């Protein structure tokens, strides 16, 4: 069955009341779920699977896909307004999103996030529609050695994330890596659990992240005690419009497109998801920027880049899921269960036997991204009012939502205690000028590198090689190694080049750069 036949069949499934309802509930519900700290897209879909039991196939899967992209977008809302990532994919957005709110530009930030997320999502939907099978086959070439190098590459990004003191950034990364050691090792050996089985699973990412970003923020807000009586509202006036000014937008387009493509690609890789993509996007933006030192003070690139990347992951993650039954991210993994329950077994059959339903879902997913933008645009102005709520009222609300979020992921109180402890840690770190972002990145990438070294070693034995020989024997790995070397040495190289310019042209060169 050709793609066009499939698409024409799709319309019958798509234009039903149930599908439309599923789409709408998915988009709005997804945004709310994403915005609530700790409730991620993964959790949202997991909790909603039973609700979809009686629904029509198309409507059910479409709702899940809509929740996915909408939740990833929704996470940016709380990241921007209250420095609390709504989902792990939005942690990177906190760094520039919250400062923008502090400057009174909350609406502008939300507008940027919405636009970027929509574009990222649409591009991934187009990829899903047009080139899913070949991309899926490409993803199979990425195995343990490649994933190890990707994790390694991600860890080298930590250096660039620490604007300012690189040593402190490295310390944060080291802290994250050390925490990542706790728990069962890949070869099932319990490390640093002190006999407490609760730690066998290691330090859970979401409670730790909520602690580092939200609870620490709650503590920092505590400094405002007594400074606001009930009559005085938060100073900053909400400036700016929702849609980014044309000139700014045009300037951002190359970055957004780039991040979207990268996001789709990361989404396709079963070992990597939105959280990694957002950091890679942010790093791309920083590398290509002429004013690196402005990152973290609240600039548009700092919001647009991660948001485009993380939404582009959603469609990308669906590609290997639908074609091979191998989910491209942890959220897609939950959708796999959803597909199975609805009698849709992933595989190339989805594009032939069930083409009508599959293409309906893909097109519906495309529509969901657009709808998400419209909802964001409509709600934007009202959402920013959150930043005007007096701090004494806001503070306990953030704390409460954070605690629910930490609880909801695992449904046990231990996770909440971890969250609180990391909150204290985050507060102390922020007070000492140690960035918290690298800790999160290291918590994700450290265990990933660990896993992949182990699996890679096992695979290498089957090829009669050592791990390193195995790595070097794979072409994609060579390319990745080249990228890593380039990434590590590029600051050095660009510094040398600019020194060279200065020598030749004197200070005129520098002034020319500013234009």
């Amino acid at each position, binding site marked *: 069955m050709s793609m066009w036949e499939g698409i024409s069949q799709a319309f019958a499934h798509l234009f039903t009341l149930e599908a439309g309802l599923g789409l709408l509930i998915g988009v709005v519900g997804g945004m709310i779920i994403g915005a609530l700290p700790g409730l991620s897209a993964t959790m949202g*879909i*997991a*909790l909603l*699977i*039973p609700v979809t039991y009686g629904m029509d196939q198309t409507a059910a899967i479409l709702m899940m896909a809509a929740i996915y992209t909408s939740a990833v977008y929704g996470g940016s809302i709380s990241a921007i307004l209250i420095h609390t990532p709504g989902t792990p994919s939005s942690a990177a957005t906190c760094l520039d999103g919250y400062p923008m709110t502090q400057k009174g530009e909350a609406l502008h930030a939300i507008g940027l996030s919405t636009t970027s997320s929509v574009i990222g999502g649409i591009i991934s939907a187009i990829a899903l529609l047009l080139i899913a099978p070949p991309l899926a086959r490409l993803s*199979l*070439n*990425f*195995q*343990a050695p490649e994933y190890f190098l990707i994790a390694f590459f991600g860890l080298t990004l930590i250096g660039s994330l620490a604007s300012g003191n690189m040593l402190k950034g490295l310390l944060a990364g080291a802290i994250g890596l050390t925490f990542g050691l706790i*728990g*069962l090792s*890949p*070869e*099932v*050996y*319990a490390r640093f*659990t002190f*006999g*407490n*089985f*609760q*730690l*066998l*699973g290691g330090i*859970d990412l979401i409670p730790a992240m909520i602690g580092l970003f939200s609870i620490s923020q709650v503590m920092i807000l505590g400094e405002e005690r007594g400074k606001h009586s009930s009559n005085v509202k938060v100073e900053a006036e909400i400036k700016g419009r929702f849609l980014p000014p044309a000139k700014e937008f045009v300037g951002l387009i190359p970055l957004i497109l780039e991040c979207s493509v990268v996001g789709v690609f990361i989404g396709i890789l*079963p070992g990597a998801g939105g959280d990694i993509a957002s950091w890679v996007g942010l790093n791309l933006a920083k590398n290509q920027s002429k004013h690196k030192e402005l990152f973290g003070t609240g600039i548009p690139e700092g919001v647009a880049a991660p948001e485009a990347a993380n939404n582009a992951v959603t469609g990308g993650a669906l590609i290997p899921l639908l*074609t*091979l*039954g*191998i*989910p491209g991210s942890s959220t897609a*993994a*939950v*959708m*796999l*269960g*959803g597909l*199975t*329950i609805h*009698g849709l*077994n992933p*595989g*190339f*059959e989805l594009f032939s036997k069930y083409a009508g339903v599959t293409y309906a879902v893909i097109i519906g997913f495309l529509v969901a991204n657009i709808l998400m933008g419209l909802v964001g645009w409509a709600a934007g102005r009202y959402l920013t009012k959150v930043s005007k709520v007096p701090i004494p009222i806001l503070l306990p609300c953030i704390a409460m939502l954070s605690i629910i979020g930490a609880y909801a*992921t*695992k*449904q*046990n109180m*231990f*996770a909440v205690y971890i969250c609180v402890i990391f909150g204290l840690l985050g507060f102390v770190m922020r007070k000492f000028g140690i960035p918290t972002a690298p800790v999160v990145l290291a918590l994700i990438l450290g265990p990933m590198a660990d*896993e992949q070294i*182990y*699996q890679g070693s*096992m*695979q290498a*034995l*089957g*090829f*009669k090689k050592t791990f390193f020989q195995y790595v070097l024997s794979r072409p994609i790995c060579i390319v990745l190694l080249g990228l890593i070397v380039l990434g590590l040495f590029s600051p050095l190289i660009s510094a040398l080049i600019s020194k060279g310019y200065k020598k030749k042209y004197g200070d005129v060169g520098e002034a020319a750069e500013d234009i």
Partner: protein
Amino acid sequence: MKKLAVIALALVMALGLAACGSKKAWPDGDITIICPFSAGGAMDTSARLTAEFLAKQLGVNVEVSNVTGGGNWTGYAQVINAKGDGYTLGFSNYPGQVGGYLNPNNKISYTYKSFTNVADIVHDPGIIVVLLDSPYQTLNDLIEAGKKEAMTISTGGAAGSDDDVLVRLLNAKYGTKFVPGGNKDDKDAKNALFGKAVAAQACNVSNYWNKWDGTGEDYVRVLAVFDEKRNDLMPTIPTAKEQGIDLTSSSDRGMVAPPTLDKDVLNKLVDALKKVQEDPEFQKKAASYGMGINMLFGEDFEKYIQGVEDTLNGMKKDLGWE
């Protein structure tokens, strides 16, 4: 004297009747099944399937609560410590649970005897698959090649998972040099197989129950089913035994309960589950997920688990659990 005795007897009977009358018959409210695995996975799907049909039999809501963390033991501990009134139950997998507490390093003080073992429900026999373009046509082809040189077989979990144990058993019994892949889960193992990073994949019937009988791009060749008899979902695939390899392996999922579970409740629960097993709707749905149903109750269940424990105990050195 006699009169006193009669009055005493009457009083006792009256009290007894009153006590019976005041206790509301189970089930009289929502039941929760604690599933220590995350939503969307095979364990969760099995638990929800059971919950749905158990609810039908009992006439009350049966919810599944995913309590993850602690290597699954947070959830298990919650079940063990819950009240035995029959409103909190649990779901567990084997050999996973057993491996968890046998590993001395995990320092888990519970064992399978810490639970009331209600019923083994899903029985998912182990299989070994290769890609359609693989040079190995039969299980013996693979084994012969494995005797000559090291080969990696991807598994749906690291040391202690049923796939991993199967690979090690082959090595122990037939002198092969297979390297267990140590993958994180089945999807990871599948990725390794299709990416040609490994020679074969050890998994279970439910992973490929609808992807073995054809030539599609995501189809595999099943070399053997490691069970006593042939599998209904893969009827033309010979068992390992038929091919001269005397090994069985499976991933089982069952229902557990607090150790203090009321005996009457247990009996009612077992009766309800027996009816669930006979429900044609249930059978149809389970088959559509590729799940084999073979319920074992009480002593039979515990005999099975003890067998799993014995097998794992015999491999402690190999698994690194001394």
